[in-house]
């Protein structure tokens, strides 16, 4: 069915199709509509889910953990301070190998209060053992949520997945959306380590150094295996729904001399900039990173790199730029832009490319 939807409603619509047994979530701007919409679905009977109206995000993730370990499919959504507040449990969910899916609507961190788009919230959670995807359209948000469950619940993975969408810029924009029948796309959830009185075990007991080390290593092993699972899932999705996605979303990259590397909606805006630059004779391409965890191998060859970070690690640099530098072992032009909802247009992006100073960092608009 072809309809229109905001990014938030697309997430809720996907959740309705996926039918989690339990949703525990707490409202926060700009994620609120996701929670409200799910509450509506539950109330009007169109979604048979236990919706737990928890009293905080720490408890939201804790409740998801409790539900998930019984072998039940579980979803939550948050943003910004909500994600920070549940941080302990975010780590826990991954360490406990629970295939929880969470939508995070990317928003800046206070103080001062600022409700607009920024990626620092979720990027701060990049070490936790969650898979992370960043989406750029309403349709992609929907599709990513659907695929996230299948990936997370695959026994080669058994790790939680965070689907990130830009606050307001994507969460509140209305675009077209194909809502499809996904029956059978996600196998019923089977959690090998589900808790059950039939087979009593202790979960998360004190663990000595050597065992702990091995168990942590196993998270990394699953993270590595998740590459294949992601690829298979995206392939199966494309086969069935004719929409194909990859680790990166590349636009006019093949013959490019300079690549603009981004996360989220900026990646779409960058495509427009690329078209503009091409018209000017600059062979630009856009490489939007979709999966940030596991971090994909990038084919940047010897092209110049302009990396736009809508996030920052103080005392170090843009987090995306740092990841790109670490992987490519090459310098880039690191642009910090869009933090706290700062407007960045395709014209601005074209400007970053035109005036690139490889090896430098540039804070858009404030840095002399």
């Amino acid at each position: 069915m072809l309809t229109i939807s905001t990014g938030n409603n697309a997430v809720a619509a996907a959740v309705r199709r996926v039918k989690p047994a339990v949703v525990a979530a707490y409202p926060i701007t700009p994620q609120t509509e996701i929670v409200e919409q799910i509450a509506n679905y539950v109330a009007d009977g169109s979604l048979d889910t236990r919706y737990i109206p928890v009293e905080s995000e720490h408890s939201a993730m804790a409740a998801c953990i409790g539900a998930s370990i019984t072998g039940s499919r579980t979803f939550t959504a948050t943003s910004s301070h909500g994600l920070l507040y549940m941080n302990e449990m975010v780590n826990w969910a991954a360490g406990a190998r629970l295939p929880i899916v969470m939508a995070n609507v990317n928003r800046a961190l206070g103080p001062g209060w600022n409700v607009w788009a920024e990626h620092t919230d979720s990027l701060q959670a990049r070490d936790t053992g969650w898979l992370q995807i960043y989406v750029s359209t309403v349709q992609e948000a929907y599709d990513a949520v659907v695929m996230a469950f299948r990936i997370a619940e695959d026994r080669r993975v058994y790790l939680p997945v965070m689907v990130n969408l830009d606050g307001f810029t994507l969460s509140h924009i209305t675009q077209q959306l194909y809502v499809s029948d996904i029956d059978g796309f996600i196998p019923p959830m089977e959690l090998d380590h589900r808790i059950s009185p039939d087979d009593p075990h202790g979960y998360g007991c004190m663990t000595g150094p050597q065992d702990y080390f091995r168990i942590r290593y196993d998270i990394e092993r699953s993270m590595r295996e998740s590459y294949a699972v992601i690829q298979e899932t995206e392939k199966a999705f494309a086969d069935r729904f004719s929409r194909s996605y990859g680790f990166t979303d590349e636009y006019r990259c093949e013959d490019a001399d300079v690549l603009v590397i981004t996360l989220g909606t900026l990646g779409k805006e960058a495509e427009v900039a690329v078209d503009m630059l091409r018209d000017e004779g600059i062979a630009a391409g856009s490489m939007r990173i979709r999966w940030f965890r596991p971090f994909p191998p990038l084919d940047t060859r010897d092209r110049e790199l302009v990396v736009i970070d809508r996030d920052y690690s103080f005392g170090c640099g843009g987090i995306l730029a740092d990841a790109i530098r670490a992987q490519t072992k090459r310098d880039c032009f690191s642009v910090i832009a869009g933090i706290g909802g700062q407007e960045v247009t395709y014209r601005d992006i074209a400007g970053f490319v035109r005036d690139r100073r490889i090896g430098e960092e540039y804070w858009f608009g404030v840095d002399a």
Partner: protein
Amino acid sequence: MHEIRLHSRGGQGGVTAAKLIALASFRDGKYATAAPFYGAERRGAPVVSFIRIDENPIRIYSQIHNPTHVIVLDITIMDVADVLVGLAPGGIVVLNSPKPIALDGYKTYSVDLTGIALRTGLVVAGSPILNTPVIGALAKIGLFSVDSAKAAISEMFVDIKNQEAALAAYEEMVV
């Protein structure tokens, strides 16, 4: 690409109007996006929404600085904000006003949406609702077809008053 800026006040239904415009365009077979510009605003405070309509998928998320169309659901906003900023000469302006207003250098259309809403009984919590009426007016200037306007309204609203109000606006709008 049509780039439309819509001015309204919190509570008048501007955000829904933007969605309706996108949906109607979409039923016309076009691509469209509608984005509210969110501040921490309360009922009564000025609100802006942006709508883009194009033949191709729209990849631009930033605000519209040079609209092709400006729609003003509450003309008192014109006292506090320059609603015409960025609009190119000859650009289209649609005003909710009982009497025609001429704006030099622009194609200006006036229509009494408030009157229509009150007349058709489209009132919620004491406030006239302007989002469906404005769709009728915009169909009249050909932003989308009348059928698509009807389809859009029927997808989002069950109350038939909405269709009536839109039709009334379509008919009253002088082009």
